[in-house]
């Protein structure tokens, strides 16, 4: 029993030990399992966090790529990425394709030499420079395209290293259009210089003509029609008059002549001139497309007629076999002139378009057509002053002129004139064609001896008493003494020392109601306008003839406000 007991007890003890060991083992494995499980979870957790971050980076990268892709694609400048070693195009944007007139397919993968860009050699040479001289910031370069067009470019480049590889990022800024505008601008500036020059010559020349005409008129008055010299002198008189017309056109170009400014209905003016022109040139069909509610424009009617006629004549000359001449008017704003060389004052404009289907103007001579004396017409047919005066007159009216022409297809001249809010007044009555004699005392002021003496004689011949002064100061002295006698002052505006304007102002201080007739061959129209507004009574353009002068004098003296004394 005892041994059995013993045995059992021993067995129980060993079993207990086994159970304890098994429990320990279980606890041990459980612990290991738990730890392994946790470790696995944490590793997967970290891994997924990593993948998540990776995804986020990927997304950010995609977004960034999209952003830069847009920046690249929609850049207004042409951008290309070129493999530096191999000289191959890796990327080009739309602007690059448009500028170079090559498709993306033609460029990508092609080397610079083999690409359809003709003078890519220049680009390559340039890129080689990049390595030696570092990045280029705005190097000027010309590139001839496959269609022969030459682009004027500003080139920027950067060498970008990425590991072993090097890329050149090329940015081309197209200056072609800008340069065209610049050269147009230079043309305009050159014309302005020419204008000043022409104005000066015209002034001197006018004075000469003035003297000749005056003397001839005096001679004619003196001898009467029975004299054998009467006809000769009359011919001289006529020649002087056509000479004056020529200087008139030159002055038009020099923009020294628009004074009688009134608000006018351009449609009517264009219609009238066109009808007159069409009557003379039956082979030209005139097509009018006028805006119904065209704004009025303040302008000098005579000068505007000159502008229109010059354009019609040129158009007709460009269509020797006859053809259609389109005349259009419309209301526009300064925005219609966007992209042209001039920088228009903001506001409303009236646009006149004169379009012919003629020969067109060769691009080579386009920059020169507004130059005075530039003509392609055979001797005797053209003076080269037509467009020059058109240009000057338009400018003088605060307007702009531009043209578009294609050889073989025709030409359109476009004139923009500032619109006026004033109503169009009735056209003024034609000037009187007879010499008007009168009575009264006239003070004549001119610094040019020759002009003064002949003018004095002319005025005297009209029946007036004449006082004369050879300059502003002298005139003022004389005026102070005899102010009560002087009915009218005829004042030259351009004088050394005290000029016409100052003299007038001084006289007006003495007698604010003094009547003054301004005259000049060459005066900035703005000044004339201003003086007329400040109380001067009229203006007469030199050289004037007796009819014109007598008419003006009579008009002023008879004006409503009675005697000025």
């Amino acid at each position, binding site marked *: 029993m005892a041994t059995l007991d013993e045995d059992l007890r021993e067995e129980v003890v060993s079993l207990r030990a086994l159970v304890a060991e098994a429990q320990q083992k279980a606890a041990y494995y*459980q612990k290991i*399992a*738990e730890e*392994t*499980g*946790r470790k*696995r*979870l*944490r590793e*997967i*957790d970290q891994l*997924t*966090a990593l*993948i*998540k971050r990776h*995804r986020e980076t990927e997304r950010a990268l995609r977004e960034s790529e999209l952003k830069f892709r847009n920046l690249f694609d929609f850049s207004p400048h042409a951008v290309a990425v070129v493999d530096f070693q191999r000289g191959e195009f890796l990327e080009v944007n739309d602007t690059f394709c448009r500028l170079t007139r090559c498709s993306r397919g033609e460029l990508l993968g092609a080397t610079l030499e083999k690409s359809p860009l003709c003078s890519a050699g220049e680009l390559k040479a340039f890129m080689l420079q990049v390595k030696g001289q570092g990045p280029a910031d705005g190097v000027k370069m010309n590139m001839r395209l496959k269609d022969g067009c030459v682009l004027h470019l500003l080139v920027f480049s950067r060498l970008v290293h990425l590991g072993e590889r090097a890329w050149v990022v090329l940015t081309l800024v197209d200056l072609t259009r800008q340069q065209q505008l610049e050269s147009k601008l230079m043309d305009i500036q050159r014309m302005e210089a020419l204008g000043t020059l022409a104005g000066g010559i015209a002034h001197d020349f006018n004075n000469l003509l003035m003297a000749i005409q005056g003397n001839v008129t005096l001679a004619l008055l003196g001898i009467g029609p029975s004299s054998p010299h009467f006809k000769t002198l009359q011919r001289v008189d006529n020649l002087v008059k056509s000479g004056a017309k020529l200087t008139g056109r030159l002055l038009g170009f020099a923009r020294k002549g628009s004074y009688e400014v009134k608000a006018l209905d351009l449609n009517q003016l264009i219609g009238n001139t066109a009808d007159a022109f069409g009557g003379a040139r039956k082979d030209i069909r005139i097509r009018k497309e006028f805006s119904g509610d065209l704004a009025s424009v303040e302008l000098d009617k005579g000068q505007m007629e000159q502008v229109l006629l010059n354009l019609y004549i040129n158009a007709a000359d460009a269509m020797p076999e006859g053809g259609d001449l389109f005349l259009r008017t419309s209301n526009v704003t300064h925005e219609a002139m966007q992209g042209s060389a001039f920088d228009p004052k903001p506001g409303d404009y009236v646009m006149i378009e004169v379009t012919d289907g003629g020969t067109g103007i060769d691009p080579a001579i386009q920059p020169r057509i507004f130059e005075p004396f530039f003509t392609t017409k055979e001797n005797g047919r053209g003076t080269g002053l037509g467009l020059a005066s058109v240009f000057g007159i338009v400018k003088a009216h605060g307007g702009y002129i531009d043209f578009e022409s294609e050889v073989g297809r025709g030409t359109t001249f476009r004139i923009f004139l500032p619109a006026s809010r004033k109503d169009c007044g009735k056209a003024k009555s034609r000037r009187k064609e007879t010499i008007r004699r009168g009575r009264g005392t006239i003070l004549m002021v001119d610094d040019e001896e020759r002009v003064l003496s002949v003018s004095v004689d002319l005025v005297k011949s009209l029946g007036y008493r004449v006082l004369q002064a050879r300059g502003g100061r002298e005139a003022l002295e004389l005026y102070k003494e005899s102010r009560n006698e002087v009915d009218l002052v005829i004042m030259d505006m351009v004088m050394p020392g005290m000029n016409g304007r100052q003299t007038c102002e001084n006289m007006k201080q003495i007698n604010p109601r003094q009547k003054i007739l301004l005259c000049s061959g060459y005066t900035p129209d703005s000044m004339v306008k201003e003086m007329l507004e400040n109380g001067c009574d009229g203006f007469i353009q030199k050289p004037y003839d007796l009819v014109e002068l007598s008419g003006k004098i009579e008009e002023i003296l008879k004006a409503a406000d009675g005697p000025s004394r």
Partner: protein
Amino acid sequence: MLVGIGCSNTEDAFLSGRRAAGQAMERGAVSNAHCVLAFCHGQLNHEEFLHGIHSLVGNGVPVLGGSAIGVITNHFLSYEGHPAAVAVFQWEFSCCRFEVSEGLHLDERRAGSQLVRCLEPQSTDRLMLIFYDSIRIPGTLSGPPSLNASSLVLQGIEQLLDPRIPVVGAGLVGDYGFGPVRQFCGSRVSSQALVGMMFSGEIIPYCRVMHGCTPLDGRYHVITAMEGSSVFELDGRPVVERIDEIYGNRQWRLQHPVNLLALGVNHGEKWGPAREFDYVSRLITGILPDGSGISLFEPDLLLGAEVQFMIRDNATMIESARKNSQELMEAVRRDGKRPLFALYIDCAGRTAACCNAPAEEAREVQECLNRYGVPLLGFYSGVEIAPLLRRSRGLDWTGVLLVLAGDEGNGNTG
């Protein structure tokens, strides 16, 4: 049976429906459609989408399905934008009927039994396919969504349905925000419905469940405090503390649902080797707002139940998808049957974006079915329903692949 699959991803719902249906008719050479299965993203206008489909297949053709987070076809997989996919069927002889049971949110069990009653089970029935609205009350900024329970729906069905008829299906979810779900119920669009399709006759269903969870450490825990779908304690200790310990930090508390950890019940041998098809896992939707416990996707665990922590892992998931789809197709072959159509009901938590996986697990399914030339329609769901361990169950975090097969030489796939 002729089947064609079509897909689309456009905001224009009408166009989307029309395009997908058109594609399906063309691919399946379907001239006279009898039925359409359709799934589209919750954001898409479902009425317009339905009009689009009807404009091509004809107004009388029933369309079944509804919202889905994403769709899968043989060559298309998307859960971004406005994905949509349809399968258009033409049968030689009628092999399918459908019924709709409304008022799911009022009583899931009643809706389940009522559906079976309407379907009038017959001896030739082979498979019941169900789609129900998962969302009872949509999630808001202030609170999580309230869900309709699959376990209750299944209890209702089991009351009247022959247990030999497998039930396969899905609880639908239309977007990751758990917004309202819309369902296609034949000729109209509805919500809070249970839609059932009964397949009968020559159709033979094959079904496989793809898992993705494995036991974390093999330890069993007893649920000692719980209520509904909320679990408070395991082994008498706060469950939240336990999970903190396992993670080694509290980051998981910010996750809804919890990324890597689930609870699982082993229906196999307790100490035997862990086999994936012995487990039913429950997703942890997140920590309770007051921090007293965790909430599960389904309320079907009971007090005193023995559970294990399960770890979700991408490698296991992808491997399971590959293995199970291949095995399923081999089984069809072995039986000398001809696969006609595959439906893949995939948990929305299994997308690569959701679980930060390097690849889509559904690609494995696509590849396998493409190898066998079987038309595939799939969608991302909230809950998957499939027979597991002798009963149909609501599952989480699984993919359920259903293949309808016919006798070899009987019926053509077009």
